[in-house]
């Protein structure tokens, strides 16, 4: 039976209406209870709470790292990255009963999703990307960035920061990879500049002298006296009511009437150089590197949500289900091998000019819907589609997946008309199969084209692939 564990300096047996087991301290994964339902951390020491949270999230066992973690206590001014990293707080606030109930409901929902995952107690998750996906799946929430001094990068994702031994580039790389694979969807949050040397976000932007690079500059307003055309800085005209043009000795009357301030100049207090375009330089507070802004790294900061593919990966693992089924059932080749075959075929046609081979393509639109609607039953559908494909193709044909939803078929010794017929057969068969089993119409696109000796592999694939 799963238990609620309090980890902290006290030894309570009851927290509000929860029975708890108390653990004084946890310094490593081995000390974490495997039967926890809920971890409760004392908020009296924020740093200690963060350290324990990191131990929990860095466990490889889904039954541990996915468990909800809440803070208990009434500390004020807790760091935002700690508050956003946990699943909630148990406090003595005025609306405590209502708040607590909402928290319990949330914890319950998390548990339900954890339990829906296969083998959560036995199989460890070594892949940090998969851990992040599973975490987001169980929380059903967006991953929000938080800017602040808690991270050397100036921005982090508090909910998943504890999954990483340290918050550094790897956090951004993993999230970027998951986005590139279509597992996470990025929504623009902001843009930020980072040091080109150490990726720190803590930069001092300063105007410097273009001649000696000193940041010790001051600004002077210039005055143009209309009557005599004299231009000088404000100080030359004197102060207050008695301002006079140093050239013609006439008093200045009114701005815009007899004089104006056409521009401002920056004067270097170090070397005396004057310019209107002081250079902007950045100084990294972390590594001390000084660089012009164009040498900084510019990065888009995203909010992330789980895609249907991501949901599928969270539930069934990171391997692409359809692709792996096709490889197994139809003998689909890795893309690089397919490209190699295609290049050889182009070369053969060019040399002998007798053969007629075609390249076919089929793409399944909204493949995510299959995962979303059918969950683990998607596997069965994919196996059915594979059977249809195997029936349409000949042994001599070569197939590979270009992306998760686009597939290429090299139909050797097949003229254009034959290839078109084959692809139409495939389209009809797969459409009927999906309609019969899925009770919905997915967009299936097919195309074919005769391979010529003048083609290039990239050009041919680009031409036949839908935009």
């Amino acid at each position, binding site marked *: 039976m799963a238990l609620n564990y309090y980890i902290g300096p006290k030894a309570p047996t009851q927290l509000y209406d929860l029975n708890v087991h108390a653990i004084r301290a946890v310094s490593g994964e081995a000390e974490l209870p495997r039967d926890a339902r809920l971890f409760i951390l004392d908020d009296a020491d924020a740093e200690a709470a963060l350290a324990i949270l990191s131990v929990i999230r860095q466990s490889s066992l889904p039954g541990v790292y996915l468990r909800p973690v809440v803070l208990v206590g009434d500390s004020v001014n807790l760091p935002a990255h700690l508050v956003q990293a946990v699943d909630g707080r148990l406090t003595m606030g005025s609306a405590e009963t209502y708040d607590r109930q909402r928290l319990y409901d949330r914890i319950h929902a998390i548990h339900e999703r954890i339990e829906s995952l296969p083998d959560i107690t036995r199989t460890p998750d070594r892949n940090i990307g998969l851990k992040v996906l599973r975490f987001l799946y169980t929380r059903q929430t967006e991953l929000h960035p938080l800017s602040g001094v808690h991270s050397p990068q100036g921005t982090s994702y508090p909910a998943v920061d504890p999954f990483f031994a340290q918050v550094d580039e790897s956090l951004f790389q993993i999230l970027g990879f998951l986005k590139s694979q279509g597992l996470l969807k990025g929504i623009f949050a902001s843009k930020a500049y980072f040091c080109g040397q150490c990726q720190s976000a803590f930069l001092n932007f300063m105007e410097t002298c273009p001649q000696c690079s000193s940041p010790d500059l001051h600004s002077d307003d*210039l005055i*143009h006296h*209309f*009557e*005599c*055309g*004299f*231009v*000088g800085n404000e100080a030359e005209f004197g102060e207050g009511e008695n301002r006079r043009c*140093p*050239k013609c000795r006439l008093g200045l009357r009114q701005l*815009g*009437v*007899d004089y*104006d301030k*056409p*521009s401002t*100049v920056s004067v270097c207090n170090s070397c005396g150089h*004057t*310019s*209107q*375009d002081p250079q902007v330089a950045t100084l990294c507070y972390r590594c001390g590197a000084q660089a012009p802004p164009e040498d900084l790294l510019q990065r888009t900061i995203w909010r992330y949500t789980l895609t249907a593919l991501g949901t599928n990966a969270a539930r069934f693992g990171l391997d692409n289900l359809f692709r792996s089924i096709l490889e197994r059932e139809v003998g689909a080749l890795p893309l690089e091998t397919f490209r190699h075959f295609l290049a050889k075929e182009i070369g053969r046609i060019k040399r002998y000019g007798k053969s007629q081979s075609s390249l076919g393509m089929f793409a399944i639109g909204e493949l995510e819907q299959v995962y979303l609607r059918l969950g683990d039953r998607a596997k069965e559908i994919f196996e059915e589609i594979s059977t249809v494909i195997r029936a349409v193709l000949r042994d001599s044909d070569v197939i590979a997946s270009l992306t998760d939803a686009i597939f290429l078929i090299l139909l050797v010794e097949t003229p254009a008309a034959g290839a078109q017929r084959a692809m139409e057969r495939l389209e009809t068969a797969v459409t009927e199969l999906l309609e019969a089993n899925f009770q919905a119409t997915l967009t299936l696109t097919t195309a074919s084209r005769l391979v010529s000796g003048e083609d290039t592999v990239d050009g041919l694939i680009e031409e036949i692939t839908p935009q």
Partner: protein
Amino acid sequence: MNWVTDAITFLVTRQPLEILALFWYFILFDFSRYVLLDNIVLTFYMLNARSRRAEKELARRALFRERPLISVLVPGKNEGRHLPQLAASLQAQTYRHLEVIVVDDGSDDDTADICRRLLRKGAIHRFFRNPVRGGKASAANLALRYADGRFVIHLDADSHLREDSVETIMLPFYQDERIGAVGGDIRVKNVFASVTTALQAIDYMKSISTGRVVSSSLGILRTISGAYGAFRKDLLDRLKGWDVGPGLDGDITLKIRKSGYKVVFEPQAVCYTNVPDSPRKLARQRYRWDRSLVRFRIRKHSDLLSLRNRNFSMHNFLTAADNLFFNFLLNFKWWFYFIQIVVFQTAYLKFVLPINYLIYFLSNVFEYLMVLWLFGHTIRRQEILLILFLPLMPLYTGFFLRGVRTYAHIMELIWKTSFEDPWNPFRVSRIARQREGR
């Protein structure tokens, strides 16, 4: 053929006084001043070439020994497209110790971007931008304020220099330390863009450049062209830069003369500049230039003609008097001559007008040959070809330019229209006019 015979007969049968009565304007004024006097002075000038060469060689050595920083000021509005060529010609100079300061006076095109690009490439050294146009004088004064050189060169942005031009324009300063400013020779860049530009190319060499060699030799040079002139920086600082134009180049020249310094012209320091390519644009430009004679020489610097002026100088007096007599009074007198011929010599009109045209044409040919001699190795092939346009010159100078000049003088004398010229921003012109009223 009959007309030629008749014309010759007409001339040889006239008494000398009759000839004078019919052609007095040419004989008394144009011939004596612009053909005779000019060419006597030019001949002496050319005969002195050898001794001048020796002096120049000494000056050149002194220049390169001292190697002073020269600030090149380039104020302008919407001139960005010309700047790369100008910057390249400055980088190709035989004298290299230059700082190029560009002031963008309220451009509304891509001038600022071009300047910043040139600044990054090191083709110019300083760049200042006034978001709102203040006028040529204020832009030049802004550049002057931040110039660090011992000498200052003022250049128009749509010009470029011969590769030895900066070196050459500096030499007079090392020949005579009382020289405060040196004018460079302005030649036309777009010579064959149109007939208008070809005629101006002749005019620039024959009248402006040659005229300045003569005035400079006589010590009565009155204008250092704004398109290309070199100045002692300490002198410009003392004068606190240029006053509000139009005509600020002639104005600063007279102020330098009044300060007791000499101003000279250096015909071998060549600068090529674009000139207006249509009669309409040319008329507008000359209208602006010609009004400055009234505004500055008659009004602002009339003290040059006053014998009671405690800083009276005979050279300055002659400078102003020559200018007023030949360019202002005789301009009106020419119309008087023209009317006199047309009204009172009707019977001889068919001879007098063509003969006048012929003698002006011949004097143009003679003067142009002098030009080719004077400018020697700096003459380009296309400038020799300009001889073909010489037959049009009497029309161009005699009627077109004179017409514009007369109109400009009248408008400025009566209505002071230079204060309404869009060449300056309205707010600047308004204040300048109020000052004139005081």
